[in-house]
């Protein structure tokens, strides 16, 4: 009898995730990003520029998500507690602010960080890891209720790869970032895979500048990846509709 009960319980526990794996609609997945804060460099700025006109037509598209991004923003700057006037800083309501200050002011449920290109971060993985540590330490103090997400670097184009042979370093950085996130309580979002072709670099036709940045098609893929990520989080029971993150 006990054996049967244990087996039944094991079966229920095994099947429970499958029972949760309902396919949400895109509109439902989109709510994962309601009131989110996106911070970053030109990649984040161009993602915002992709989202803004779509949100004009449909206010539920990344509803009330805020974007603070500067062209040459660095992860090093994101890891600062105090403004350094020599840095390219984020501007919040007309004043330069650090990322943690903006997070404290907005207290978003989720913070998505997309930067590193301007630090040449893939060539300095050890620096990146220390920035992640610092960011998490700051966020624990400034916005402890905010879940932090780090978005991977996108792949480089074939042109850049032929010139600089950096994709392997980009991939190594993304892997290191993923592992680091798991260690420190952040969440890693892999946008690189969906942006890659079979040759392991950026898909043809989705680059804005032939180098690092994404055009409208590329950003559409990123948005789709973000929606799929929301589905994954839902499937894992880490998020519920009409609510924010389930406690970790």
């Amino acid at each position, binding site marked *: 009898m006990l054996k049967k009960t244990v087996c039944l319980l094991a079966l229920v526990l095994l099947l429970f995730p499958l029972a949760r794996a309902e396919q949400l609609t895109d509109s439902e997945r989109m709510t994962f990003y309601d009131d989110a804060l996106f911070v970053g460099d030109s990649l984040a700025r161009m993602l915002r520029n992709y989202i803004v006109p779509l949100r004009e037509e449909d206010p539920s598209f990344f509803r009330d998500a805020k974007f603070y991004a500067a062209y040459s923003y660095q992860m090093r700057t994101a890891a600062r507690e105090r403004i350094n006037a020599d840095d390219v800083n984020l501007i919040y*309501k*007309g004043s330069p602010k650090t990322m943690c200050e903006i997070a404290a002011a907005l207290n978003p449920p989720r913070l998505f960080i997309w930067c590193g290109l301007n630090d040449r971060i893939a060539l300095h993985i050890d620096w990146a890891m220390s920035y992640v540590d610092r960011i998490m330490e700051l966020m624990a103090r400034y916005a402890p209720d905010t879940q932090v997400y780090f978005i991977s670097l996108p792949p480089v184009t074939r042109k850049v790869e032929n010139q600089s042979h950096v994709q392997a370093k980009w991939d190594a950085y993304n892997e290191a970032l993923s592992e680091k996130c798991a260690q420190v309580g952040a969440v890693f979002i892999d946008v690189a895979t969906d942006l890659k072709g079979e040759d392991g670099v950026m898909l043809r036709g989705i680059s804005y500048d032939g180098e690092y940045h994404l055009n409208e098609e590329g950003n559409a893929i990123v948005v789709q990846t973000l929606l799929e990520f929301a589905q994954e989080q839902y499937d894992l029971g880490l998020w519920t509709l009409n609510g924010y993150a389930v406690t970790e």
Partner: protein
Amino acid sequence: MLAALLLGGCGAKESIPAAVPVSLEDKVFAACKDIGELIRLPAGDLTDLIGIEQEDIREAYWLGSSGLDGREILAIRALDTQAALRAEELLKGYLEQRRQEAKNYLPEVYQLLTDTDVARKNCTLVLCVGADAKAETKALLDGE
């Protein structure tokens, strides 16, 4: 009446110039070329990014580039003189920030940003970034 005419300017105590029938959106489309690819930037960002309070704005129209070419057109009709002066200060800070962003990153954009400035006429402010910024600014302020 003569005194009112002599005062000029704008504001709660001074008379606001006779209603300008043309919307800022119409003026932008008349004055600025090659704006079909620009995106309409949200009015909320005038506050969230630049710091201009919504209550200081009577009307605004804001277009920006979806890419990295720096193109931008912002026209604001402020509520009154004081609001216009506040907004002017904040816009100058915003322009300076854009210059700092672009300086070592996008040299061509940096050049466009250094070749332009925030312009004000009465309660109307304009910031144009682009190859024809001067002409666009003049056209947008005309009649304000």
